[in-house]
């Protein structure tokens, strides 16, 4: 076959429509091929493997503490590594640090913006980070002096082009991972405010993120309004895995304690479990009677229980292995917006739009 370089070729423009449809066709074939490959490895279902596991007996959990003090909707909360302190943020811009065991308020900061949707406690217990509609994430070092004005030492770390939806410290106080409504996640150096790595790939607002607990500690997951949950490599900024089985916005993602799976809660009223090693969704936690979206999910220490806070003011407790609902907890008077299990698994705390936080055990 003879190739002749004709003058037209040099000036030939890429026909966008033609190549776009070719690409789309290629994309579809690749997707089906990937699904077939994964389906070949899918030889058993989770509940089948879980048949030999004993069922959980009667499950009774009660509210052990009610933290009152916020004047408006509680949007986010996080535990301190000392297993008893909590930081929570609300719609009116207040961020409060509580000793949940004694229910005392230890510190309070007023942010210059409303809707503080993200807050996190530093691993050392010496600082908190928060952000929201101001598009920034700020770190406030905490002090032992009760009268000190914490806002004076505030450090502005992250800058996004839209609202901040979630933030988390990595293994030290020196780095923060943030996700934003502008569709990106970013890793920041706290001391200098420098952007270390940015993560692009979501086509819509990113609503939540969680860092891997495993020994390699190099990945994190994020969930967004494009119904996708992505797994990212922190070092290279690449998206390693992506799961798109939800039917609506993903409000919350949380790693399984072993780091090999994660759960997500979404507005389509389901929570789903994804296996990272098998690269597929392995369980759906839903019921006909649960119609309103799940806003926040977390695992118990062993990974047997999945707690989900829903928009119909209830908390559903799921048996992760068997896929059944173990219990439903009532108590909040408005939707549950944040739910986290304590670091040693002795209790979990739920924050709600009814201005309170409850600790359950």
């Amino acid at each position, binding site marked *: 076959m003879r190739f002749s370089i004709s003058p037209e070729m040099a000036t030939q423009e890429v026909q966008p429509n033609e*190549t*776009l449809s070719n690409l*789309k066709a290629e994309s579809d074939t690749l997707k089906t091929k*990937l699904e077939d*490959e994964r389906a070949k*490895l*899918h*030889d058993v*279902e*989770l509940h089948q*493997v*879980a048949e*030999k*596991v004993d069922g*959980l007996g009667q499950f009774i959990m009660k509210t052990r*503490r009610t933290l009152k003090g916020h004047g408006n*909707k509680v949007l986010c909360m996080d535990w301190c590594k*000392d297993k*008893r302190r909590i930081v929570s943020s609300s719609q009116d811009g207040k961020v409060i640090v509580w000793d949940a*065991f*004694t229910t005392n308020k230890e510190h309070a900061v007023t942010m210059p913006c409303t809707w503080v949707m993200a807050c996190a406690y530093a691993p*050392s217990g*010496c600082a908190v980070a928060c952000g929201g509609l101001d598009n920034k994430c700020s770190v406030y070092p*905490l*002090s032992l002096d009760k009268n000190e004005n914490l806002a004076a030492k505030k450090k502005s770390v992250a800058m996004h082009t839209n*609202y901040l939806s979630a933030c988390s410290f*990595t293994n*030290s106080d*020196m780095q923060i991972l943030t996700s934003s*409504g502008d569709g990106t996640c970013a890793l920041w*150096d706290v*001391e200098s405010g420098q952007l270390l790595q940015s993560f692009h790939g979501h*086509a*819509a607002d990113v609503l939540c993120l969680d860092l891997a607990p*495993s*020994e390699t500690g190099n990945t994190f997951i994020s969930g967004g*309004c494009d119904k996708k949950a992505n797994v990212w490599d922190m*070092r290279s900024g690449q998206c390693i895995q992506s799961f798109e089985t939800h039917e609506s*916005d993903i409000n919350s993602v949380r790693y399984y*304690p072993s780091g090999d799976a994660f759960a997500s809660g979404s507005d389509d*009223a389901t929570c789903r479990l994804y*296996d990272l*090693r*098998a690269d597929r969704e392995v369980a759906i936690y839903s019921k006909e009677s649960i119609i309103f979206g799940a806003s926040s999910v977390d695992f*118990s*220490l*062993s*990974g*047997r229980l999945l707690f989900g806070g829903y928009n119909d*003011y*209830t908390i559903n407790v799921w048996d992760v292995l068997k896929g059944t609902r173990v219990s*439903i907890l*009532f108590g909040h*008077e408005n939707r549950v917006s944040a739910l986290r299990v304590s670091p*040693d*698994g*002795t*209790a979990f705390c739920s924050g709600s*739009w009814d201005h309170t936080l409850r600790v359950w*055990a």
Partner: protein
Amino acid sequence: MTIRTLRDHGQHYRPRMACLKKVEAFVVEMQDPKSGVKASDQKLNITSIPHVITGQDILAWIVTKMKVTTEEAQAFGTMLVAYGYIYPLQNHRKLVLVADSTLYRFQTPYFWPVQKWPAEDIDYAIYLAKRNIRKKGMLEPYEQEHYNNLHKWMNYKWDFIVMQATEQYKASKERKKPDRVVLDCQERAYWIVHRPPRRTHSGMDYGLDRLIDPNAEEVLTYDMVRRTNIFLTQALMRSAVKSSVSLTAFVKYVTTHHTHDPLLTNPVPSNPWITDNDEFWQLNMRNVDIPTKLSVERWALSFWELISDQRGRADFKLFLKKEHSGENMAFYEAAEEMRWGAATAIPEKSQFIFNTFLKPGAPRWINIDGRTMGLTVKGLDCPHRYVLDAAQTHIFLLMKKDTFYRYLKSPVYKDMQKKALVPAPHNFTDAQLEANAKNRNPGISPIVLWQQQEAEKAAAAVAARPIDVKAMVATNKLDRK
């Protein structure tokens, strides 16, 4: 008013309100004259209002239809009220379902939350103006506030608004009294849901709008599709594990950790949140002398569990000291510090690590293969936070696959297993529990603990420095006699 069929009037479901489609279908069934909730006429302030339902009837119907418990049905019923599908006739500001003879009515579909138009401020202004006329200026405080606000920024339209309001008011006066009362109730209920007064929890108060419009068509650009293809090709090259293998791993993890999960197995001595006694936390602190048996068992589950627990890590370091291979753990910790630390500290830390662990003849030289050593040292010319990754992984795997198992068989660990405490479970009487609740231990602030830890680390760093013989001789500390 009852409706029998659900006709889609081209309604656009609001973002994040996809759940309402199911709720709507449900509400239509509730209103079915034969199989729905029983309605009756009730007298309210002289007028007789048609199609009134009681709270307990609604609850019973939901329980039968959805086959759920009473509490769940109550929660669902409250959602129906919170979204405005059902409204209470008396205590109209509290949007909850009360399961007794409290009276409710179904809201007319015109006012359902799924309608295409959002509750505009101009409609609210007209409503408030109308109410103002009717009540002769006596609006509720929150309504008055809204009215003043709207009057201020909608001033240019105010004539139009007042005109509309008077028209509607006149039209309503021409209706029969029962109709008028019903329409007023419906409109008031609608506005309570869409402009909730303080302390009313309304379902339509759904927070911030997300940036993306879910009803917009997704535009796939050339670039996006190309990236998707690259991602899919890479995904195909990656190998996945068989489901049976990974799922069995989950089951194994859950079973081994079952006894360690405080929510599944009662912790000993007791769960601090339940008994208000924090002995459980005190026994598991970082610097406790004798750890509990449960912690010691947990250390044996995996190397990661051992070093994640600070007390376990301390024990492991003690073992390494006895084996004279403490440099591995020290290197791992130093590398971790560099990886997660501040960007400005990287050059200084990399220099320290090189001098202490990597250079030939270093005081705490780590034993890694030549290739890794070469790569690492070369990388240290331009240090970045991940430059020690290869060496760190090597050392970690060495500790995990070899040192860890030797530790488990060592006298250090076996000794600890024998000494470990098994605290007796607490058995508090009610009076004691009450006393506990009053005397909750405030504990130590994490800031203080952190400062203590940092001081300890600094002292350890000083102690680990190589001894300078010449300096000691100079200060006469080393007596050669």
